[in-house]
Every structure is written in structure tokens, then in C-alpha cells.
């Protein structure tokens, strides 16, 4: 909350089709739903009036089903796809106003992307693929290979430096893609559904890898996915997209705990709530007599952790934050959370600009 946003996106539009420019500007057209817009103008709005901030050091997940515009959105951030309207700023600098060389600077040093289908150069070895970004920046051969070797080691591909991408498994290939993005030491990593082409087990490994990297380096990440589990697992905050719009933006807890509308509710219905919601949202105010007794849990512990603690102690648990008891959870409240009957305070998520 105290740090300036890395990416700041405001009223972003991306419209495909003939004379796309007129769509965001015309209130009558912007009010149309996708099918009507298509029949009236022949245009498709992939991103509609989207605004959000990405804060330094967070993992910002954009989630939605296919066709929701999430991949277009992430490409707009570095203008791999040229936005139609709106503003994008990186560290306060207007991305849309950048000239070509400035834009290249941005792509070379500040934001690197990892792709669903890896996008590796099949004729180069692993090492040269990783070093590719550095090569483009004009770095000498010895230096860039040295740097690349370090990153290759970091993503766990030692010994495979001289293989060709075609000889690697999907997971290994994506590690190369990740290493290539990391090699340039960018401020932000952009992930476009990086793991959706991988087997479930490998996908979990890769998710762990991302979490580990984030822990070690604290790099800002924008992560696109259609997999809710993945979003909940990785995301500090999640923007849920539908038909080009962000329908809800909030922490995983807010999304699961307080769906903004029926679409989101339907979306998160099967999520094991106890693993996402934290004690902080489930707790009630402590009554005076409970002070000092029962197990202590942290406010950011999940409900399922609290259940375990409560079940083991056979008594309500205290929520302790910095030595002070801020609330209590008992079996009833916890059960209510799991059952979904417990009404949670609606967080103000309809206004994404507002920090929570």
C-alpha cells in the first residue's frame, strides 16, 4: 500500500475489427454486449474498460475462461498487442506514449514474458535460448553464456545446457522459457498460461518453482491462467475476467468468500473454502472470558488449519496478532465457513482501484 504500482492500467480497451477506434469512444457502442457489438460493427472487444494496479512484489493473477480476453490483456501491457484506448503506465511512465526504441528497452529490461507454448528457438541449445534475450541486447558471447548458465542452474536444468528444445520434456522446456525471461533480470515477469500445456504433476512442480522464485527474489509477477486452483495458489490478488471485463478483483479469500456476482459464485462453488479463507475473515470478536485459553492461531492461517487446531484442543481457538488477541474462532463459525452459510463481510471489490 505504501509502494507505487509497477503497472497501472486504466480504462484499457482492445477492440479487434474494422475501425476499432470508434468503439471505446462511443458510449452507445460500449454499452452493447459482445454479440450485439459484433453484429453492429463487425468488431470484437477482447478487453473492455479494464483498470487495475499491479503492486511491487506481488503476484497478480488474471483469471478467466478462454476467450475472456486475459491473454490479450497481458500482451497489451508491453504492447505486443497495441491497445485501442486507455492508459498503461509502468513505474509511472506512459507505455502507450513510448517510441520504438523505448518500447524495446521496456521489453528488454523491465518486463519479460513466459508463454504457454514456450516459444523456444528449436535450432538453439538450451543455453543459447536462455542467452537469447541478452544476445538481443548486444551482450558479448562469453558474458551472456556465463549469465545464462547461472540462470539455467537456478531453474534446475544443469547438465542440459547443450540439448535442443526438441529433446526436452514439456516441463523442462517451460523451465527454459522461465530461465530466458529471468536472464534479463526484468522488473516484472509476465506469465501467459505458462503451465496449461503441462501434465498435472509437472504443473504442480512448476507452480512450486514459481512460488520458490517469488519467495527468493520477490519479483513482481503478472500471471495469466484459466485454472482457478492455480490462481488461488499463486495469486496475492486475482482479477477475474469475463467477456473482456474484470468482474471481480480481490484476494483469493475475497473472491471465494465474497463472490461479487452469480458468475463468480458459480465459478468458485467447488473450491474447498476452508483452504482459501483465513481465520481473519471467519473470526468473531473475542469475549472477555476467553482470554488466555485455547490454542492460538495467526490471523492469516487458513480455516482448515484453524479447524485442525480447534479439533485437537477441543476448544475455540484464539486469533493472535502480534501477541494481541484479535478474535476467536470456534467450531460453529468454522463449520459455517466450510458449509458456506456464514455471511462474510462484503469487501469493497467492485472498485478495483481501492486497495484492500
Amino acid at each position, binding site marked *: 500500500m505504501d509502494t507505487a504500482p509497477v503497472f497501472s492500467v486504466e480504462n484499457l480497451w482492445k477492440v479487434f475489427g474494422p475501425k476499432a477506434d470508434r468503439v471505446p469512444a462511443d458510449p452507445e457502442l460500449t454499452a452493447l454486449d459482445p454479440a450485439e457489438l459484433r453484429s453492429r460493427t463487425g468488431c470484437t472487444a477482447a478487453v473492455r474498460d479494464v483498470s487495475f494496479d499491479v503492486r511491487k512484489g506481488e503476484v497478480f493473477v488474471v483469471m478467466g475462461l478462454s476467450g475472456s480476453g486475459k491473454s490479450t490483456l497481458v500482451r497489451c501491457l508491453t504492447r*505486443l498487442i497495441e491497445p485501442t484506448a486507455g492508459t498503461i503506465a509502468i513505474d509511472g511512465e506512459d507505455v502507450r506514449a513510448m517510441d520504438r526504441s523505448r*518500447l*524495446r528497452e521496456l521489453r528488454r529490461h523491465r518486463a*519479460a514474458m513466459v508463454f504457454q507454448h514456450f*516459444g523456444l528457438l528449436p535450432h538453439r541449445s538450451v543455453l543459447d535460448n536462455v542467452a537469447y534475450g541478452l*544476445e*538481443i541486447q548486444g551482450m558479448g558471447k562469453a558474458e551472456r553464456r556465463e549469465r545464462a548458465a547461472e540462470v539455467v542452474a537456478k531453474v534446475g536444468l544443469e547438465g542440459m545446457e547443450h*540439448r535442443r528444445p526438441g529433446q526436452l520434456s514439456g516441463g523442462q522446456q517451460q523451465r527454459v522459457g522461465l530461465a*530466458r525471461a529471468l536472464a*534479463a533480470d526484468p522488473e516484472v515477469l509476465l506469465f501467459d498460461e505458462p503451465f496449461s500445456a503441462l501434465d498435472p504433476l509437472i504443473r504442480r512442480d512448476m507452480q512450486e518453482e514459481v512460488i520458490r522464485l517469488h519467495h527468493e527474489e520477490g519479483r513482481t509477477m503478472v500471471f495469466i491462467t484459466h485454472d482457478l486452483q492455480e490462481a488461488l495458489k499463486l495469486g496475492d490478488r486475482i482479477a477475474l475476467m469475463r467477456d473482456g471485463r474484470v468482474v471481480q478483483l480481490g484476494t483469493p479469500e475475497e473472491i471465494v468468500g465474497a463472490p461479487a456476482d452469480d458468475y463468480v459464485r458459480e465459478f468458485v462453488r467447488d473450491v474447498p473454502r476452508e483452504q482459501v479463507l483465513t481465520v481473519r475473515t471467519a473470526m468473531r470478536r473475542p469475549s472477555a472470558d476467553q482470554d488466555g485459553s485455547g490454542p492460538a492461531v495467526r490471523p492469516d492461517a487458513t480455516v482448515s488449519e484453524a479447524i485442525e487446531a480447534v479439533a485437537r484442543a477441543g476448544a475455540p481457538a484464539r486469533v493472535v496478532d502480534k501477541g494481541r488477541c484479535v478474535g476467536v474462532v470456534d467450531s460453529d463459525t468454522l463449520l459455517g465457513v466450510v458449509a458456506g452459510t456464514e455471511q462474510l463481510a462484503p469487501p469493497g471489490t467492485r472498485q478495483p482501484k481501492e486497495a484492500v
Partner: protein
Amino acid sequence: MATITASPPRVGLPAFLKHRAVHKLLLLAVAAAILVPLANARWASGSWPSALTLDFSQPLAKASDWIIDNRDSHPLFLYFFGHVSNIVVIAVRAVYLTLLAVGWAGVTAIGALVAWRVAGVKLALGTAVAFLACGLLGMWVPTMQTLALMVVAVIASVAVGAVLGLAAGLSDRMDRVLRPVLDTMQVLPAFAYLLPVVLVFGIGVPAAVLATVIYAAPPMARLTSLGLRGADQGVLEAVESLGSTARQRLLTARIPLARKELLLGLNQTIMMALSMAVIAAVIGAGGLGDRVYQALASVDVGAALAAGIPIVLLAVVLDRVTGAAGEKLGAEPEPHSGRGWLYALAGVVVVAVAGRLAGRLDWPDAWIVNIAEPVNRAVDWMTAHLYSGVPVIGGTADWAGHFTTWVLDPMRDGLQALPWWGLLLIVAALAWVIGTWRTALTAVLAMAAIGVLGVWKPSLDTLSQVLAAVAVTLVVGFAVGIAAARSDRLERALRPVLDVFQTMPQFVYLIPVVALFGVGRAPAVAAAIVYALPAVVRITTQGLRQVDPAALEAAGSLGATSWQQLRQVQLPLARPALLLAVNQGLVLVLAVVVIGGLVGGGALGYDVVFGLAQGDLATGLVAGGAIVCLGLMLDRVTQPTERRAKKGA
């Protein structure tokens, strides 16, 4: 039942096609009902009306005279064509002298070692054997001449093709302009390119090289463009996301990503250049083609074969080596590959120097094996026994006679008896049903152009020969292709045979063909069949083999017999390949129409030969133009629109 479960999409297609086809035909019928009476009233004649022909012979003869008179004085020739010609001569000479200086041992060693590095030990041995065979046959110097010409022509073709391909691959507008041109050039017979080049450059090596470049560059251009356009978009996006400049993207991603297509382009360019280098003997290219051509004059099949075998060997070796290089792409490079090259280089130097010191630069005369005599005896024996008087089935001469009387004559007379507008309508209907109105328009215009050129009758004569040849080729080709697709052993046995027939210069089998079938249109058809058959067999076999195994398995699981599987699953599913075979059969048969002119095929083929022999460019060019138009028309009439993109491969 089996078909329905195996391939549901197929069931929809013919019905849909039929529906559309009926619409198109109705529309065409309406248009015809209005136009035909008008046309018939004005120009009522069965053959093409003379009022609608243009006489090109005067202006062409004048142009030809002007060129001959101004070739040594006009600035255009002095400052442009002269330099072009000069560069070609210098380049060919440089390569030729180098090859001679390296000596036969050195050239063989270089060939083998290059083959070893890019394609492995087996092909290296094959390459060495091929070069030594050229020497053994007494063809070392002609082989080097052909090789020198080829090297220059291939380098130029690749350069020109790559530049055009880059333009078409990077700019949509260029692509729209170039694609139809390149597509069309691909179907034109090689002979069509000889006359215009001779017109400008005269007989000789420069003309031969330039004709070869014009003939061989289009596949390179097409495949370069195809490769650039087909590059994995995901990779390109990734490369862009890393902040590359457009130039970096092209050099480090797009071109390397297209390297498979580029190599395939190189392969095709080499093959086409080789076949053209032989044909260009007619315009003074020298080398192996010239030897074949000279052997023809003394009716010496054996000598022609002695010069033909090196061509076949060169073709097979070059094809296999470039092919193997393509397959090796993407594999992990061998460690120490640099050192391998170094050893190779050292080896070459040692062999070359040894050859030099031994004073053995020319192939030693004592080592020449004369195959001409036994070959001639064999051919004589064969023709003597097959020509006539074979009991029951009759001799080949009888067959040829019957074929001429019962097939070729009725077809020719039938085509020539059709009113001209009737033929145009048939062409339009065929092309439209199978393609779009655009293809129909092109086909009709091409056909009409033949009439305008004033060679309507001979063109129909040629057309009848082409159709007859294609019919026989397809019947035989499909039968052999199906058999080869069902038997691995047969396919393996056929492969070298097909290679030989595909690459053997057609001049070589002219004499046996005449000896068997006499002079006339029948041997012309026979020569065309021999030339077109290998490609048809190949495409058929490949098409049948590529049929989805799942569909076959499904049919098999339903208890279909193998005949049912073939008829109900494989053939329908291989339909695109079979259509391609028809198309290629037509294009190839047309390509040897000129060869047919050399054995009495008459018509357009003879006119082209006449034009070349008499320096009568008017006759030659008009006939060449008509062949081109026939080619265009036949290509469009047999070219389903979906196929376009696949043709490069």
C-alpha cells in the same frame, strides 16, 4: 457401414460439392445460352475463327532480327545483358577450372567428405562411388562441365529465389503479386524457357545458365516464402517480447525457423537445375547433356546411356545428401563437429595434392569401361524381338498402330471437330466445378489465348496426345502405387527404378522408344508415360500410406476385408493425394511434349524443336506459348482450390 464410422466428414463433402456444382453448371449454362448464339452468328466455324487470331510471327521475327543486329552495338546489350553474360561465363569458367585443378581424386574426396559430414558414412560411400562411376564411364570432363554449370546456376537460383522469397514472405503485397507468378512458373515445361533466353543471349553457356536459373529459382522462392510465413507465431511473439528489432527477428528467428523449407527449396532447386542443365544441351550448354544429345545423332543408345548414368547418379546423390541434411536438422549437434570438418578438410587436401603430384588430374583413359556396346546389343535384341511378330499379343509396333488408330486418332479428330466455343465451355465447366470462378476464368483465358495465337489445331492435337498419355499413366500409376502401398518390399524395390526414370534425361530413351513403337504419336505418348509415371506412383503410394491409421483400424475392427478397406477407406481418404497425382501427371506429361516432337509427335512439340533448330523464334515462341497456355489450362482444370498451400512440398 465401415466408411461412415471411419470418416464422417467425407460423407458431407461430395453432397455439398454436388450441390454447389449443380449451381455453377446451371449458371454456366445460362451464360452459354446467351453467348454461344452470338459468337456462333459472328464467327461460325468449327475451328477457332481466323478473325480472332493475331499474327505474332511478323513482330517476333522482327524483334529477333533486331536483337541479332544490335547485339554487339546497342547499349542495353553492351551495358546490361553483356555484363550478365560475362559474369556467367567468368563464374562458370572459374568453377570449371577449379574442379579440373582439384583433379578427379580431389573432387571425389571433397564430394565424399561433404556427404560424410552432412549425411553420414553410407551416403559418403555412395557419393564416392557415383563420382568414380562418372570417371569409369569416360564422362569425367563432361561431368565436371555440367557440375560447373550447375554450381553457378544453383547459387544464382538460390540467391534470386531467396530474395524473391524474402520479399514475398515479409510483404503481403509482394506475396499477392508473386504467388500466382511462381505457381504458374512451377507448372511450365522447361523447354518453354529456352527460346526467350536464346533470343536475347544466343546459343551458349550464358543462355543455358540463365534458362536454368529461371527454371530453378521459383521453387526456392516459393519455399522461402512458405517457410517465412509458416514460422511458429508463438516463437516469433516470444522473440518480440524480448525486445528484438525487426532485423534481429528476421535473422535470429524467422530465417532459422524456416530452415527446413529452405533446405527443401535448395533440394528442389538442385534437382530442377540438373534436369534443366541437361535439356539446355539443345542450346549449347555442353557437358553431359551435350554428350547424350550427340549420341542421339549416331543413334547410339549405349553412348547416350553412358552419359545419362552420371546424370542419374549426380541427381540421386545430390537429392539424398540434401535430404539427409534436412532430416538431421534439430538433432543435437555432434560434439567436436568442428574437428570433424577439420579432419575432412585435411583429408581432401592430402588426396588432392596426391592426385596432383601423381600427375593424375585427368581421369586415366585406361580406366574407362565401355558400356556402349553391350547396351546397344541388348537394346537391339530387345527391339528385334518385341517389335513385331510376337505370337498372340502382337508386337509393340502393332500395339502402337492400334493405339494410334483407336485412341489417338478419334481423340484428336473429336477435339478438332468440337466447335471452339464448345471446348471453351467444357474447360470452363470443369475448372469451375473443381475450383472457383477465378480458376475457371484463368483456364478459359488460357484456352482462348491458344486460339488467338493461331495454333488452335496443333494444340488440340497435342492436347489429345497429352490426355491419352495421362490416362494410361494414371491407370498404370494408380495400380502400381496401390500395390506399392500395400507391400513394403515392392516399394523398396521400386524406389531405385523410380529414381532412375525420374532423373534419366529423356533423350536417352528416345531411340528405344522409336525402335519399339515406330515414328509417330504413339512413341511420343510412350516417352511421356515413362517420364510421368514415377511421380504418379510416388504420390499415390504416399497418399495411401498417409491415410489415418485409426480409420483403417476402425474399418478393420468392423470386419472389412482388405479390398473393402482399400476401396472404402484408403482411396476416399487419399483423394487429395490422388487429385495431386492427376495434376502432376498432366504437368509432367506436358513437360515432355517437346521431347515427343523429336520422335514424331508433331504438333506443338515439333514446332518448338523446329523453332530452336531453325532459329525461327516466331514459330518456336508461339508454339512454346501455346504449350504454356495448355499447361495453365490443364493445371487449373485439375487443381482443387484447397490444394494450393500444399504444393511446395
